[in-house]
């Protein structure tokens, strides 16, 4: 009995040296500890990208923040696009927003992928999370999720000259342009939601809950994981059919 255990450990160590995925080491450890057998890993043709917390840009945010770093996500999207094994991407969003440049960079990468992508907003997809959600080929929002549409704010030292406001307007416009060109919402409607007063306590803007985001044309459909997976598989089949035919 003792011998078997040692043998088991030796194989685990050998595997680690050979560079087998970490996940196998975990399973090995669980097996040796007599835990319940985990389900066998299945090779999936879908990759899941989770975008959570703050979207971190050029400045490393203090550790209190939960962040998604664009320099991690972007090369992964390149690898996904290039990999012959991966046929589609599911993007799960639960974000409070973050850096504009980083958010738009991720959104542009998702939008310009040739592989089908489906996004699912769970919990919240606020501010810069909106361009990322609409960048996918098809977007879902769960019933209880919220989307906050609000204007960009300037923080820190602001020089009180008209140019500052022109700059801010320009930044605002590029976000609006991206959202409008990738969803069914009209420019005027989005601006109206963005600058509406009386909805948010200390700010201008609108909170859209689940169905409302679909009604204004921001998101494509109300749904959850099953619907998102179904749509992604349908998009994959569609792509295969168009390539084959």
């Amino acid at each position, binding site marked *: 009995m003792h011998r078997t255990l040692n043998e088991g450990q030796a194989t685990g160590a050998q595997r680690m040296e050979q560079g087998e995925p970490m996940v196998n080491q975990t399973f090995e450890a669980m097996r040796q500890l007599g835990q319940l057998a985990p389900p066998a890993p299945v090779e999936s043709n879908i990759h899941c990208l989770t975008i959570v917390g703050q979207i971190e840009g050029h400045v490393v945010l203090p550790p209190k923040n939960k962040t998604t770093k664009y320099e*991690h996500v972007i090369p992964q999207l390149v*690898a996904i696009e290039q990999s012959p094994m991966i046929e589609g991407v599911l993007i799960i969003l639960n974000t*409070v*927003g973050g850096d*504009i440049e980083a958010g738009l960079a991720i959104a542009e990468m998702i939008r310009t992928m040739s592989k089908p992508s489906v996004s699912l907003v769970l919990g919240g997809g606020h501010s810069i999370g909106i361009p990322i959600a609409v960048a996918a080929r098809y977007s879902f929002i769960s019933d209880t999720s919220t989307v906050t549409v609000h204007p960009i704010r300037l923080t820190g030292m602001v020089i009180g000259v008209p140019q500052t406001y022109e700059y801010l307007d320009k930044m605002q416009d590029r976000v609006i342009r991206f959202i409008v060109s990738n969803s069914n919402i009209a420019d005027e409607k989005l601006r109206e939601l963005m600058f509406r007063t009386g909805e948010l306590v200390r700010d201008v803007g609108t909170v859209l809950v689940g169905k409302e985001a679909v009604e204004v044309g921001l998101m494509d459909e109300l749904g959850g994981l099953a619907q998102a997976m179904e749509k992604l598989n349908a998009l994959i089949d569609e792509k295969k059919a168009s390539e084959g035919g």
Partner: protein
Amino acid sequence: MLMYTILPIEEVLEGWDEFEPQYVELRRGNITMLVEPTGFGQGRIVRIISSDAASHLEPRLQPGCLINLVP
């Protein structure tokens, strides 16, 4: 840096003046990475620096994974 978030900026940047991460650069095979030492000869991967796209999908080398600083 222009932040577009629903959180107040003071909340996002709280503790930035005390936050000084120390990173070391590590090379394994063809992959260079930034690692934050956590003690006991180990470190947590912060960033993968590689032009090979596939190395960013390597499960053992995902940001957040622990790695031995000495191979």
